Every structure is written in structure tokens, then in C-alpha cells.
């Protein structure tokens, strides 16, 4: 797990041409067995072999200061929309005291050793990876993972600049201050730019423990700064992977299995030969690669080619409900057992079964990989949430050492987890295509390929059961989860299984926050041939829906107001209670409120953050037992510790609300005899402007270290809405999406 306190930073600086400097930073979790600061701070690479740990000190630039006083922050995490390329530079620039108007970002190369997120350090058997952390952008970990190390990197460089200025002005370091990329000596009215000092500063030894600012001194952290990537995302100039071109490149589309796991046994090119620009086909493990000059010719040719397949997964999602419910009638593997019950059948007086469908991520930019394989080396351009692993997987397929694969991570047009694929499907496939097509190529996925390509949020069933204590409280609570496991291979299990809840199907169930004497949670891992993957907020999305709606159901049976009962059972959870009270106040909702609106609330903590969300809705009775629901407003109160950029925190929460409503209202992937029924945005709808409700988000002030927010806004939205509907109708909707219920009409 996270080991911030044990970690030490080692920095090294290098003078660069033109008078600037590069600063490298390295983490370590055990300083005693590592080089001393002096040896770790060698200022050039000439004799790395002399140091027994030399390979641990590969130059790794986090900060570049140019002679003309610009600062570039090189960011290890991926930008998938969440604001990485702004938040991480803000953290560095804060401690560096850099002029924000002269700070820019750069995406790092793929390298877990040098750019891995310290959050993912583990005790596992991964050698250097344990120390460095995986370079994966997932689980809302970027800011909370890199926060400490990037602050120290900025502070150390500031210290070196101060020392260089002290030499130059012949004054003590203590008499100097910094501001906006200048070192200032007030007494002599001297101002030296960082750029002019950089070359000399690079000769200084990086301090091991540079002093950090007190939060009261922050000038950037906590400010609503404009995104550093906003301009190129507003004028069409940003090259996403889909746009990226290299000379002599062909376009490849793949005809993939009509059922997951089916094998290609034949194909007929047919009239595709007449398509202008069509170049040929190649069987690969995932199907048939269709090679053509460009997108249009590849798509035209692909339509005309017929393929024959054998085997594959033939399940129908309509059968899953009974299958999963049957499993949930049997004891699972206990993950929480507060009352030390004998594992067995939880028996409460009130029981409900919940069912959640498969979901596709559907990022706006469909998957694509540009790859130039030249026999002994390879270069890849791809928007990835997991570049170090994608690089490794491509190298494995190509039979190359990872160092021979240069992986250029591009900014992604959305990810939501799809671009950190535990099955590494798209990168493996592109490498296989590259092996058989002797020239640079781009594998492109159409929207249909994306929706039908698997790696869905797993189908999940929950059985919740509880007993009331007869005095207005809840005596016992059990939650059983049956879901497909995300642990699909030994690498993933080793890399992630030990360090994160992200792959646990009990996530969000185990952490049920209410003070109930007897809480029991167990799980069933179900396996079938449908490839599954984490989707934004992972199992929290399903488990928290079940927990928070079941809670309101129990409150009703107990004759309690859902707000009052929550407050009572969260007395031991001050952060939960604070966001709950804040959101109720924002919406002016009390247990005594009596007006025409219906309200539902839900509370959730994860990623070291806490959120409460409240939905106000009009629910109008119509004929034939139907209710018309229109969402008036979504309120969110967030405690995410230090909000590095509150505007981007709010943007993430708003984004989470829209993402959640898409899945709650209509998100569903269905399979019939193994074939995916949905294909594009007409049958896999996502929320649109006219369906997007008003929102109000409050970020509560906090001095705690930052928590994650990328997924925080998702899990409570569904239960808040369902609870508002429950308040109006007394109907507990236990299956999603809600628009499948004939009794509900959404406006």
C-alpha cells in the first residue's frame, strides 16, 4: 500500500544545452540499502556502471528549466481528460515557486521504474516495479499518488536555485527568497531568473529533504487555474492517436470474433479486391486483419469480406439473472464479518436481489494503435492509461526486449478504464498485426468495434439482507456479491491483487459505512467467456447502488427518515457526516421538508475522499401505474482533502454525474447466444445535453492530503435518484438500467 512516510526522494540534476537544467527524481522505500545522497546525485551519466545501483539512477527528468525561464513539468501519469497535465504541474510549480504563466507540461516516456505512480508501490514479487510503482492511471490515484514526490521535486530544485543565486550574489541563502521563477535578494534589489541560474544550479547537490511550504503559503494549489491543455483542445490542433500519422502508414481494421473466444477458421475476400486502396488480409489471433490505404478503404473492404468462426462463448445475458441468483443462494467467500458469524446463509427479515448489466466504456475516441515495427525495434503511438505495461506486452508479442519498444503515450479521447486493459487486447492485437504487415500501420476501431469489443463492466448480482432492531435501528446487515472477477492473469494478480481494492468485487460493499452491529459481506467470483474490465468507479458503482437504496428501504420499514437514520448511523464517521450535512443544507432539505419535490441522497467514501450526492426530482403519477420522473438538480458535497485545482475537482464531479446517469438510465450491453446486441450510440445511448440536469457542487475546505476525485462522482448518483423515486413511489428498483422498467418514464 501507500508508503509515503518511508519513501525518500533522490534527485539528480543535469545541465542541458542552452543553459537550462534537467532535474531527475527517484523514489525509494528503503533508504538504508540505497546509495547515499551524494552518490545518488551524480551530475552526469558518464560512469553509471561504477555505482552498483547505477541502473536505479537512469536519468529521469521531471522538471526542465530553460535559459529563457520556462519550466516544463514532465508528467508520468496519463491525461484522459481528468486534468493530469494541469494538476501535476501545479503541484511542482507550487514548491518551485514557478511563474505559472511560464509553465508547460510534457508527457513522460513509458517507464514504471522512473515514472511509476508511487501509489502503486507494493511488497509483491515484481522487483524494481515494487519500488517504482506501476505507471498506471487508474483508481483516481494521480494526484494523491504523485503529490508528495512532486512537491519534493519542486522544492529541491528551488533549493538548488537558491544555492546557485547565493554563490552568484555572494550572500547567504537565508537572505534570499523566490517568486514567480525569480530568486530575489531584497536588500540589494537583485532579481535572478531561474533560467539564468539553471546551469549553475545543476551543479548543486539536490537536497534529500527540502523544506516544504506550509499550506497557508500556497499560491497555486487551491487555485482555479485554467487547464494547460485547454487551447489545443479547443482549436482542433491536438493530435489524438486517431489523428496521428507517420509516413508510409497503412490503416488496419480487424474482423473480430462474433462471439468472445471464437476462432477464425476461414475467410473469403470476395469483392473486397475491387475496393480502391484495399491491400490484403492477414489472419491474426484475434481475427482477420484487413489492410488498406486509409480508414474509408479499410471500412469498405471489411464490409465485403466474409469470415467463418468456430466455438466461442454462447451465453445470453437473459439467463444470467437466474444463474447469479442461484450462486447467491450459497455462501460465498467472507470479506467482512463484524460479528464473527459462522460463514453461511445470512438471514435477515428483509431481503432484496439486485442485478446490474454489462456496460461498455465507450470513450469518445475509439481505440487505436499506431505501430512501426522494424524487426529489431519498434515504436508505438497510443493513448494509454498503462503505458509501461502496454510497452511490455507489445515487446513480448514481438519478441523484443522492452527497451527496444519506444512507447509514445498520447493524450486520450477518454478512457474510463478501457485504456488500462487487464487483457491488453488492443496492444497485443496491434503487435500481432505489425508482425505480419511489413510497414508502419494504424489499427483503428470503429464505434461498433468498440461497443462490441468486450472488456465490459462485469454483470453483477447482489443479495442484501437485513433485520431491524425494533427500535428504529438496523440490527444486522449482509451483502453478497456475485460478479466476474477482474483478475484475469498472473501478471495482473501479482501487480494489482496485492495492492488495491480495484479488482475486488466487494469494493463498496465491504466498506459499508453505517454503524450496524452485525455486518457480513461475502462474494462469489463467477467466470464465463465474456471479457470484463474495470469501468470508472468499478464495483463501487454497483455495490453502492445496492447499499444506499437498500438503506432507504430499511429506513422506510423502520419508520425513519433516510436523512435522520443516516446521520444517526454515521456519528462515528465525521467526514461522511460533514458531506451529508453539507449536501442537505445545499438543497435545503430537512426531515421536516414537505413540498412537491422528491429527494434522495447517498454517501460514499473511497480514494481517500468522501462525497454525498442528493437528487431533487419531480415524480408525477401517470396512468397504468407509471411515474414520470424528471431530475431537477444534482447536488454534490465533496471532501477530497486538499483540492489542488477546485475547478477541475468540480469538473470531475460533474463528469461523474453525467457518466453515472448514462449507465443508470440506459446503460446496458446484452448478449444473445454470445453475440453482442448493441453497436453504436443509437442502441447504446449515453446522456445528451437535453438530459443533463442542473448541478451544484461544493468542495469542502480541507487541509488533508489530496484524495482522488476521478471516480468519486459516479457511485452515489444512481442510488440518490432511485431513493428520490422510492420516496415518491415506495418502489425499490433493484435492477438497472432504470429505463427498462415500464413503470418509469424519464423526461
Amino acid at each position, binding site marked *: 500500500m501507500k508508503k509515503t512516510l518511508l519513501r525518500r526522494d533522490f534527485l539528480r540534476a543535469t545541465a542541458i544545452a542552452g543553459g537550462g537544467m534537467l532535474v531527475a527524481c527517484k523514489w525509494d522505500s528503503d533508504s538504508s540499502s540505497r546509495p547515499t545522497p551524494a552518490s545518488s546525485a551524480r551530475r552526469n551519466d558518464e560512469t553509471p556502471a561504477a555505482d552498483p545501483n547505477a541502473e536505479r539512477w537512469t536519468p529521469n527528468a521531471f522538471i526542465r528549466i530553460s535559459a529563457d525561464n520556462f519550466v516544463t513539468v514532465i508528467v508520468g501519469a496519463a491525461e484522459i481528460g481528468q486534468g493530469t497535465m494541469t494538476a501535476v504541474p501545479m503541484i511542482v510549480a507550487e514548491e518551485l515557486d514557478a511563474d505559472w504563466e511560464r509553465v508547460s507540461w510534457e508527457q513522460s516516456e513509458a517507464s514504471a521504474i522512473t515514472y511509476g505512480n508511487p501509489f502503486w508501490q507494493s511488497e509483491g514479487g515484481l522487483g524494481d516495479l515494487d519500488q517504482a510503482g506501476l505507471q498506471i492511471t487508474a483508481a483516481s490515484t494521480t494526484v494523491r499518488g504523485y503529490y508528495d514526490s512532486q512537491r519534493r521535486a519542486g522544492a529541491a530544485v528551488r533549493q538548488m536555485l537558491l544555492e546557485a543565486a547565493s554563490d552568484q550574489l555572494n550572500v547567504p541563502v537565508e537572505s534570499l527568497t523566490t517568486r514567480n521563477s525569480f530568486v530575489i535578494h531584497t536588500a540589494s534589489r537583485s532579481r535572478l531568473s531561474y533560467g539564468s541560474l539553471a546551469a549553475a544550479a545543476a551543479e548543486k547537490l539536490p537536497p534529500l529533504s527540502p523544506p516544504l511550504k506550509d499550506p497557508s503559503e500556497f499560491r497555486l494549489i487551491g487555485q482555479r487555474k485554467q487547464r494547460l491543455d485547454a487551447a489545443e483542445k479547443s482549436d482542433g490542433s491536438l493530435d489524438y492517436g486517431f489523428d496521428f500519422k507517420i509516413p508510409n502508414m497503412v490503416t488496419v481494421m480487424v474482423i473480430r470474433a462474433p462471439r468472445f473466444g471464437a476462432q477464425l477458421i476461414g475467410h473469403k475476400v470476395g469483392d473486397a479486391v475491387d475496393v480502391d486502396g484495399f491491400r490484403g488480409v492477414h489472419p491474426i489471433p484475434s481475427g482477420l486483419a484487413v489492410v488498406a490505404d486509409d480508414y474509408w478503404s479499410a471500412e469498405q473492404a471489411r464490409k465485403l469480406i466474409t469470415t467463418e468462426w468456430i466455438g466461442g462463448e454462447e451465453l445470453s445475458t437473459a439467463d444470467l439473472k437466474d444463474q447469479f441468483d442461484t450462486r447467491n443462494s450459497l455462501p460465498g467467500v467472507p470479506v467482512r464479518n463484524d460479528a464473527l458469524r459462522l460463514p453461511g446463509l445470512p438471514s435477515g427479515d428483509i431481503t432484496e436481489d439486485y442485478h446490474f448489466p454489462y456496460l461498455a466504456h465507450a470513450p469518445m475516441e475509439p481505440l487505436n494503435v499506431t505501430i512501426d515495427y522494424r524487426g529489431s525495434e519498434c515504436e508505438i503511438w497510443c493513448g494509454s492509461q498503462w503505458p509501461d505495461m502496454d510497452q511490455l506486452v507489445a515487446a513480448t508479442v514481438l519478441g523484443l526486449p522492452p527497451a527496444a519498444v519506444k512507447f509514445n503515450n498520447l493524450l486520450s479521447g477518454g478512457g474510463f478504464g478501457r485504456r488500462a486493459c487487464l487483457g491488453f487486447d488492443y496492444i497485443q492485437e496491434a503487435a500481432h498485426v505489425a508482425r505480419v504487415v511489413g510497414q508502419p500501420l494504424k489499427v483503428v476501431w470503429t*464505434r461498433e468495434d468498440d461497443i462490441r469489443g468486450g472488456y465490459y463492466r462485469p454483470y453483477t448480482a447482489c443479495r442484501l439482507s437485513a433485520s431491524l432492531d425494533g427500535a428504529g435501528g438496523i440490527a444486522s446487515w449482509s451483502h453478497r456479491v456475485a460478479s466476474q472477477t477482474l483478475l484475469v492473469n498472473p501478471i495482473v494478480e501479482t501487480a494489482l491483487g496485492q495492492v488495491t481494492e480495484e479488482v475486488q468485487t466487494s469494493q463498496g460493499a465491504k466498506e459499508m459505512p453505517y454503524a450496524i452491529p452485525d455486518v457480513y459481506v461475502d462474494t462469489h467470483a463467477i467466470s464465463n467467456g465474456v471479457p470484463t474490465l474495470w469501468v470508472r468507479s468499478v464495483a463501487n458503482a454497483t455495490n453502492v447502488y445496492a447499499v444506499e437504496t437498500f438503506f432507504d428501504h430499511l429506513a422506510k420499514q423502520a419508520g425513519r427518515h433516510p436523512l435522520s437514520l443516516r446521520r444517526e448511523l454515521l456519528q462515528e464517521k465525521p467526514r461522511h457526516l460533514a458531506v451529508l450535512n453539507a449536501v442537505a443544507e445545499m438543497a435545503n432539505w430537512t426531515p421536516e421538508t414537505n413540498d412537491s419535490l422528491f429527494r434522495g441522497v447517498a454517501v460514499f467514501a473511497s480514494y481517500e475522499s468522501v462525497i454525498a450526492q442528493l437528487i431533487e426530482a419531480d415524480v408525477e403519477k401517470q396512468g397504468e401505474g407509471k411515474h414520470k420522473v424528471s431530475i431537477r438538480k444534482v447536488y454534490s458535497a465533496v471532501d477530497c482533502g486538499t483540492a489542488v485545482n477546485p475547478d477541475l475537482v468540480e469538473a470531475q464531479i460533474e463528469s461523474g454525474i453525467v457518466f453515472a446517469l448514462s449507465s443508470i438510465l440506459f446503460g446496458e450491453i446484452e448478449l444473445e447466444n454470445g453475440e453482442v446486441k448493441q453497436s453504436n*450510440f443509437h442502441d447504446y445511448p449515453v446522456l445528451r445535453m437535453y438530459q443533463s440536469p442542473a448541478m451544484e457542487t461544493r468542495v469542502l475546505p480541507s487541509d488533508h492530503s489530496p484524495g482522488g476525485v476521478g471516480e468519486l462522482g459516479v457511485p452515489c448518483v444512481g442510488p440518490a435518484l432511485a431513493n428520490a423515486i422510492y420516496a415518491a413511489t415506495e418502489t425499490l428498483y433493484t435492477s438497472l438500467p432504470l429505463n427498462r422498467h415500464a413503470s418509469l418514464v424519464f423526461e
Partner: protein
Amino acid sequence: MTKETVVFTVNDRVEQTVVSPEKPLLWVLRDELDLTGSKYGCGRALCGACTVHVDGQPTRACVTPVKAVEGKRVTTIEALSETELGARVQRAWKSLNVPQCGYCQSGQIMAVVALLRAIPKPTDQNIDEALSGNICRCGMYPRIRKAVHELAAGGFA
């Protein structure tokens, strides 16, 4: 497939392409003219990421055969900053942190410019009608709506 010569104007430049007439405008822009600011998102006019202006009208380039723009004026995101309104919309986008992943924003901005040209002071309903064809999977709809209202009020001049 027979090819034809199609002549049209893109961002004030006359372009002539010899092309299969049913080839969508989007792929002519992206693959032949190297104007990749207009995005592919669905290929079926469902998401709006490919929105361009054809004679000023917002048009889904992914389903518009290039033949259909013969002799017409096509404007893409790449030339938008050359107009006063286009530049203002882009300023609003930056100032209000509207983009997240940004992939849909070319289409969003093209749709917003067309809306504000047609209806300088749009109501929420006008916004819903004009912009609901443009999907933002990052869910920046509240910010887009806010930006449109502030632009209509003369902001970001």
C-alpha cells in the same frame, strides 16, 4: 468503384479531389486534406464529433458524401479562430475549462458557433435542441451550457 472529380472550398481554399463520390466528407478532410481537427466518433451522425459547417450550416461530415458538398463552402475547426465569434467561443472554452478529454470539442464548438449565429441569445431549450446531437462522454454539458449563455451575454469579447 468509379471516381469523380469533386471541387469544393475548405476554409477558403478551393480543393479538388478525385474520389469515390460517396466517400464521406470526414475522410476526405482527415485522410486527404490532413485536417484532423474534425473527429470520428460514431460514423453514423449519432455523436456530432465530426461537425463542420457547410455553407454555414452545422453538418455531420461522417455521413455527408463528398459529392454533396460540390461547389460549397466547408469550414472546419481549424479555421474557426479566424472569425470573431469562433475566436470568442474558443476563449470561453479555455476560460471556463470546458474541455476534459477534448475529443468531442471540435464538434461542440462548431455546433455552438452555428447556434449563436442563428440565435444570438438562445434559451435553454434552444441549447438543448441545437446541441443534443453532440455527445460529450466526459459530461461537460453544464459547462457548455454556461459558456453559451455567457457568450450570448457578450462575454469573452
